[in-house]
């Protein structure tokens, strides 16, 4: 669902330098000047490896830390306008709650703070809890819940007041595969209700299946932003070539292909632009071509290309 009435989030040159060092005398740029806008009704993925500045961006948007420069507007209003927060839901990274409360009490507390109509409150709380599948644990003290259950409570508190814009900082972390699918479904459901979703993640497959658009961030700097399909087109594709005849291996290796032989069957992956040369080489070596298939580019490819090889280990881990 893509509506472009007005941007839900408009970020203009927003930046943040943290004071570090013992005397706060050193500056660390957590976020370099960032310009970005998220349309209403979008599911927007905010990608980046650890330390990229995702959480920093969210904290700036929510007024938890103050920007070193730049401006941002949420739902068309200034960041300092506290009334706009009635329409925002937020799931912090590794959420922690008052562990003396039960999920029901906690959500009731948050609903009060968000100014939910007292007559609606009980229903809102129950609905939110049901949507994350936590109704059964509604009366267990939070300190007795597992990490994944807490994450669900966290999502429930982000939607208990029926916000228009939901900001989620790594909503999938700590969830088992079933939980992750449930959250994906929930995000889609919320989006279908017309809510704008902005979530940060470094799990790329989730972003790929869910997002209309994504932004990629690295070391505090925006590396690219756009519709997922468009971004993928930018990464040059690769092809997989399979043939019979080990003799051709050396010729193709010379072209730069990575070859794996299984008996007489050889499989090589090489950039699309080298395909012609590869086919020529096979012909010259009298190899029998079995098949040529394009390798589907993924967000991960884009991500790796943008973020650079040195980060790959951390991100894919």
């Amino acid at each position, binding site marked *: 669902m893509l509506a472009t009435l007005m941007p839900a989030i408009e970020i203009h040159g927003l930046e943040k330098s943290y004071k570090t060092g013992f005397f706060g005398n050193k500056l660390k740029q957590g976020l370099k000047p960032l310009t970005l806008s998220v349309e209403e009704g979008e599911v927007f993925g905010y990608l980046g490896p650890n330390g990229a500045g995702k959480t920093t961006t969210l904290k700036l948007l929510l007024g938890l830390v103050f920007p070193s420069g730049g401006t941002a507007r949420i739902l068309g209003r200034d960041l300092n306008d506290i*009334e706009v927060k009635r329409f925002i839901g937020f799931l912090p990274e590794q*959420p*922690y709650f008052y562990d003396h409360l039960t999920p029901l009490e906690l959500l009731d507390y*948050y609903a*009060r*703070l*968000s100014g939910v109509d007292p007559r609606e409150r009980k229903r809102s709380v129950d609905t939110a809890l049901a949507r994350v599948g936590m109704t059964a644990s509604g009366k267990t003290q939070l300190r007795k819940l597992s990490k994944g259950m807490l994450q669900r409570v966290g999502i429930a508190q982000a939607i208990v007041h029926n916000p228009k814009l939901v900001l989620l900082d790594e909503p999938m972390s700590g969830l088992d595969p079933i939980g992750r699918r449930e959250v994906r479904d929930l995000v889609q459901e919320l989006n279908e209700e017309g809510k704008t979703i902005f979530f940060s993640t470094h799990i790329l497959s989730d972003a790929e299946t869910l997002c209309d658009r994504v932004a990629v961030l690295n070391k505090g700097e925006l590396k690219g932003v756009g519709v997922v399909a468009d971004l993928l087109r930018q990464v040059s594709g690769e092809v997989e070539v399979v043939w019979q005849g080990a003799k051709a291996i050396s010729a193709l290796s010379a072209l730069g292909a990575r070859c794996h032989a299984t008996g007489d069957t050889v499989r090589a992956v090489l950039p699309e632009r080298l395909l012609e040369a590869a086919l020529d080489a096979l012909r010259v070596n009298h190899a029998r071509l079995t098949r040529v298939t394009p390798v589907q580019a993924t967000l991960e490819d884009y991500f790796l290309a943008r973020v650079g090889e040195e980060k790959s280990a951390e991100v894919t881990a």
Partner: protein
Amino acid sequence: MIERITAIARNTFREAVRDRVLYNLILFALLIVGSSLLVGQISVAVDRIVLVNLGLTAISFFGIVIAIFIGIGLVSKEIEKRTLYTVLAARPVRRWEFITGKFLGLVMTLLVNALAMSAGFFAAVAFVSHGLGHGDLQLVTAIYFILLQYVLITALALLFSTFSSPLFSSIFAFATFAIGTFAEDLRGFAQMASGLPRWLMTGAAYLMPNFAALNVISEVAHNTAVQPRLILLNTLYVLVYTAALLTASVWIFERRNLK
């Protein structure tokens, strides 16, 4: 605004009430009140004096320990545990509302504690002097002053909690309490100096929380009446000074980046 402040206060109260440490402290205070009965038995003539001194000191001391103990964590713990994110980030809660709510919640908690401890104390007094008399109204004044002490110390702990870790906050709070207890003597010290030091010391001594005038335990133990004017002035003072401490807390907290 009011709903949000009450919600925060209520949650703070609930958190404190569900903490087991609190009950241990109250129990301990009541034990001391009880034990003063035994001490009183030994020295016949002064049983009521001993009971009043020991009992009121216990109520004052344990309340202050609780106030500091919980107060120092009021803000810093929420920052550290990041529970604050879910309150301030995406809710229409102003930071000063948060501070006020937290403060009121803890004051409520202490009020209830004081009621519990005072009930035990009055029961002991009634036991010793075979019933309560008109003269025991002075004891109510002393307890009222103790409550005022709680309010001050809570606001102090809260202030420290907005910029410092719980450990340091507790040290600061206890130190300020100790200094405040000797505030009158400090002003005396200042009088003995001269020149610039005198000015500086006098200023500092007047700015310290004036806990000295809030302790009338030994007076009421000896059945001397507390002047009504002092009750009025102390009430006003605590209100004004607490407001100042809360303003300072808000001032600091408004500018704080929440890590």
